[in-house]
């Protein structure tokens, strides 16, 4: 046979496409475009509302960071071809477990947190095992867990403490090393110095007069960044990442070629549970209480962030960076509407419209990538 390399290099059946356009079309393009649009709009309409002051930035960063934490888990799971409707209930459940262990039972907070992680990871694995063993759609299985976990989250504290909010975790977590990993702040020294040299504003009145308005980076944001980076590397740069894509693209085909699809899916369900528990722990440590209604509808918010970020609901396609941008868009829009003073009940309408707009944009981009019609 003649050397076919030459043939490869130019094929008359391909219309030329500029390398600029080539570089542009990637799963996260929709997220990037969306982020630019959103920031441009709010800079235009809400720049004088304090949204881009240091406190404002911290404000929407925290909201976005929360979304990011659960979006990373949901994103990898969705790429692996499943999704998890029990994320919200899991958040409520995990918080309640930590509260019961540390306040009611009086365990040290770090033990309470570790035991809770063990429990939620087990539940995540159970979700996964049921899905892969029975072949049922994860929608149904995790919907069942949505109800079961929420039911227990309401039932347990009532049975034990006769209330559905358990407080006092802040006192219990005082000086606890693991508590600080979730609820603390870092770089406080730096920010106080920023405040001293006038780089950021200081409080002009109230109990904390003279202190900088932002006194550190909450661990919540650190967790979000770390999870996004790890998720991105695992997905794109490792063999396991290839398995995630394969399991979501076509589980049967992946199984035929020896990818341990069941293991991949179960691990992803566990990772989603892990992210939900990180979310819950950060929240409990920040607010010092756990309530039975925590996390309501968070599963949808995670899925929305992921989908805005360009992932395919049916699996096999997506990007963690995209999901993180989706979470950022979500957080900025939600808070931005408040800064801009838009009637707050219209937030839902905006959310729906953004979601629609984002998925349509993403579909267009994906078609350009895969060349489908």
């Amino acid at each position, binding site marked *: 046979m003649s050397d076919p390399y030459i043939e490869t290099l130019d094929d008359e059946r391909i219309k030329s496409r500029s390398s600029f356009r080539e570089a542009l079309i990637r799963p996260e393009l929709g997220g990037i475009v969306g982020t630019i649009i959103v920031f441009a709009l709010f800079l235009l309409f809400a720049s004088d509302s304090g949204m881009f002051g240091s406190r404002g930035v911290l404000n929407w960063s925290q909201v976005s960071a929360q979304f990011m934490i659960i979006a990373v888990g949901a994103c990898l799971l969705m790429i692996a071809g499943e999704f998890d409707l029990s994320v919200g209930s899991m958040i409520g459940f995990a918080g309640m477990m930590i509260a019961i262990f540390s306040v009611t039972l009086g365990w040290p907070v770090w033990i309470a947190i570790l035991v809770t992680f063990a429990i939620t990871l087990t539940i995540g694995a159970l979700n996964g095992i049921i899905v892969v063993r029975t072949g049922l759609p994860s929608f149904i299985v995790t919907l069942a867990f949505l109800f079961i976990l929420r039911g227990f989250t309401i039932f347990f504290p009532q049975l034990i403490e006769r209330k559905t909010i358990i407080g006092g975790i802040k006192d219990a977590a005082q000086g606890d090393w693991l508590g600080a990993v979730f609820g603390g702040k870092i770089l406080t020294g730096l920010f106080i110095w920023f405040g001293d040299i006038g780089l950021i504003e200081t409080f002009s009145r109230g109990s904390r007069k003279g202190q900088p308005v932002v006194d550190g980076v909450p661990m919540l944001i650190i967790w979000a960044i770390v999870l996004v980076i790890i998720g991105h590397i695992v997905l794109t740069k490792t063999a396991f990442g290839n398995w995630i894509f*394969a399991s979501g693209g076509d589980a049967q085909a*992946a199984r035929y*070629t020896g990818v341990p699809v069941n293991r991949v899916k179960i691990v992803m369900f566990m990772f989603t549970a892990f992210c939900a528990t990180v979310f819950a722990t950060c929240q409990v440590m920040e607010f010092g209480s756990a309530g039975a209604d925590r996390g309501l509808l968070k599963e949808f918010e995670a899925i929305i962030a992921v989908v805005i970020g360009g992932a395919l609901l049916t699996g096999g396609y997506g990007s963690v960076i995209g999901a993180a941008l989706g979470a950022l868009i979500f957080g900025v829009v939600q808070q931005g509407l408040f800064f801009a003073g838009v009637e707050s009940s219209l937030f839902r309408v905006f959310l729906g419209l953004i979601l629609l707009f984002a998925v349509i944009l993403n579909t267009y981009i994906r078609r350009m990538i895969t060349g489908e019609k």
Partner: protein
Amino acid sequence: MNPEHAPLVQMKKIAKHFGSVIALAGVSLEVFPGECHCLLGDNGAGKSTFIKTMSGVHKPTKGEILFEGKPMNFERPRDAIDAGIATVYQDLAMIPLMSISRNFFMGNEPTRKVGPFKFFDHEYANQVTMEEMNKMGISLRGPDQAVGTLSGGERQTVAIARAVHFGAKLLILDEPTSALGVRQTANVLATIDKVRKQGIAVVFITHNVRHALAVGDRFTVLNRGKTLGTAQRGQITPDELQDLMAGGQELVALEGSLGGTV
């Protein structure tokens, strides 16, 4: 072909039931190293089902599988792959949304160590994929093209190239040529020939007598879940084989009106 060799695989009285359907009713077969064993038979004869029990996709309802003389109990395809059985399935194992090179190395990802971590070696994967596909006579636009944009034949070629590249002791091909053009078919047959000469056993399923005769050393014909026996190359004429494949039915009338063997 070395009949005096110990067989690589021995399938003994394999039966497979799906609910109330009896797909296989006790089929036995031996495959020797370095031989190309053709599996022939009508539609629905059970060929695909049979090789799937060999490659760990189905667990046989009854029967025993010996691989290199040892009884094997494949729980999943991974086990068969690890034992050295590479398979190209009739319903191709390809992920349309993934790039060709990611598909090519799916389940066998090449890794590169960076400190304590192992990373997917994309560069190596892309390069190997391009080379292997070129060897099969398919020129790709690029290794990161999505498999979903390939034609049916192009996809089949990727699947075969993959199996050959990781080709172990036994290569199973389930109707690999059915969707292929003449050139690609010739390539596949040449590849089978090459592989066989390296001492690898090949199980080749086809409906095409000519393709079978071109590369086959032995021919086993299945019919309605049972085997009609195995023939050596040279012991059987193309016409006899054709008759067997059609389940022994008389095709004279038809063939007459259409001008010879179809």
